């Protein structure tokens, strides 16, 4: 099976992908898991290709993950962050990106605080494939892919069989690109998504037809929200947004929404927990749960490399755009 080459010129979000695209990406990602388990963790697939990781927001795991993925594919990867670069001198995103494109990279991986930044660059840059590594509150597609891949492995299902599961996402949904990408992904796969959190952080619009086709359920009580859940995905409470008054106090949030082993007693048998990291232990998730047997967080990080290898490989292994 070969996918139409035009389909993956960029990876900007899960929204807009077809179910076949998503399954194709997950199936390919699964094959890359093996490369990272070898003694010699390197394949020549992207030899001679250049990948620029432009991370204009703090990031440890995503940036390390993209860099390792690029290196394991033999691409030359360079990392650019906000501080200590011309971005901190006031250069606009577009000027920075155009300058970088003038050096002929093959792939530009972008993280930016503004929603739509990756889309914008994909339209402005004519010769470079763009990967969205997180844009504002919009999307973080490789995170959703690695979450889905982790679930496929855990439940021992092929990507096309990961359906009918109850997925509960708990926390600051409003500001979460991880939640948005995951909602799109699980809707394509055919899983049922429940969003849990205080009304300020889980706007009722998420359940609207215009948002995600009306297929999302909202619940403001944690125990009710996790009832029968096969998967509970806990999101980080963004402490840096605390001044915005979305929650009264952290203590109150923790009292009502901290996910603990006790809370999960009402979940489906064999329920597993995901967290995109970094976690605030004792705030949105208890340490016991985070490190316990139900937690798949380490698997998520491992799979992150495989997903990013698959993404970079698909975008970087084709001829340049003008040849297509």
């Amino acid at each position: 099976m070969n996918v139409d080459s035009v389909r993956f010129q960029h990876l900007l979000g899960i929204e807009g992908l077809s179910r076949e695209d998503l399954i194709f990406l997950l199936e390919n990602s699964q094959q890359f898991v093996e490369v990272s388990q070898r003694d010699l963790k390197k394949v020549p697939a992207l030899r001679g290709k250049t990948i620029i990781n432009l991370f204009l927001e703090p990031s440890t795991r995503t940036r390390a993950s993209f860099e390792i993925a690029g290196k394991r594919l033999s691409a030359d990867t360079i990392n650019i962050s906000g501080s200590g670069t011309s971005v901190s001198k006031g250069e606009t995103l577009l000027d920075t990106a155009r300058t970088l494109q003038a050096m002929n990279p093959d792939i530009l991986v972008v993280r930016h605080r503004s929603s739509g930044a990756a889309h914008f660059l994909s339209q402005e840059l004519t010769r470079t494939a763009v990967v969205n590594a997180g844009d504002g509150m919009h999307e973080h597609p490789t995170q959703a892919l690695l979450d889905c891949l982790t679930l496929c492995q855990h439940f021992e299902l092929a990507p096309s069989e990961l359906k009918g599961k109850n997925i509960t996402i708990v926390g600051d949904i409003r500001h979460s690109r991880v939640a948005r990408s995951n909602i799109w992904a699980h809707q394509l796969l055919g899983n049922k998504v429940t969003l849990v959190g205080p009304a300020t952080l889980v706007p009722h619009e998420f359940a609207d037809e215009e948002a995600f086709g009306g297929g999302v359920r909202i619940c403001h009580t944690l125990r009710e929200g996790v009832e029968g859940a096969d998967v509970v995905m806990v999101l980080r409470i963004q402490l840096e947004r605390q001044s915005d008054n979305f929650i009264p106090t952290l203590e109150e949030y923790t009292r009502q929404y901290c996910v603990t082993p006790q809370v999960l007693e009402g979940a489906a048998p064999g329920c597993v927990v995901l967290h995109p990291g970094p976690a605030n232990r004792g705030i949105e998730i208890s340490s016991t749960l985070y490190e316990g047997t139900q937690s798949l967080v380490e698997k998520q990080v491992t799979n992150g490399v495989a997903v990013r290898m698959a993404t970079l490989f698909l975008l970087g292994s084709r001829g340049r755009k003008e040849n297509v």
Partner: protein
Amino acid sequence: MSDQEHHIPDFWKEVVDAETIERCLTRISYEIVEKDRDLQKLALVGIRTGGEFIAQRIHQKIQEIENREVPFGVIDITLYRDDLSDSLEQPTLKGTDLPFSLSGHRIVLVDDVLYTGRTVRAALDAIIDFGRPALVELAVLADRGHRELPIRPDYVGKNLPTHKDDFVRVRLREGGYTDGIYLIQAHDAKKG
């Protein structure tokens, strides 16, 4: 699998039939066994996707002849190809599965059709990334010539004289067909 997939187009000319394929594979199996009586180090590796089933059959025959287990694996050479950037198709990985250490083994690499030699070149690179075999040999069901690299098979089922623009296709019962090797001549290939 639908009947459609089992259908061989009329313009595909059968050049090797099922019985001959079976005999070729039996002969190759005996040749592999006879070449080196110290079979303790022997292991078979099929190249995905064409070589996988051929390798499985040879593997089975050798195990029957020798009445013991022989290590077996398959490699996906997609990540080692030298034409990735030229291809307009999005490459799909089927995965590598080598459940044993290659180091010190006598590896017989197996493919269905040997043509330019580029696939074998990629497979050799892949093999070497997994360890240091004592020896690597090459077995192919059909050799159609037109090598572009200095690569030569150690075991050949059939030598097929072809024109460079022709296509050679192997169809096997594992794929839902009757075993056969088909030649599609360049002027017929345009038909589909």
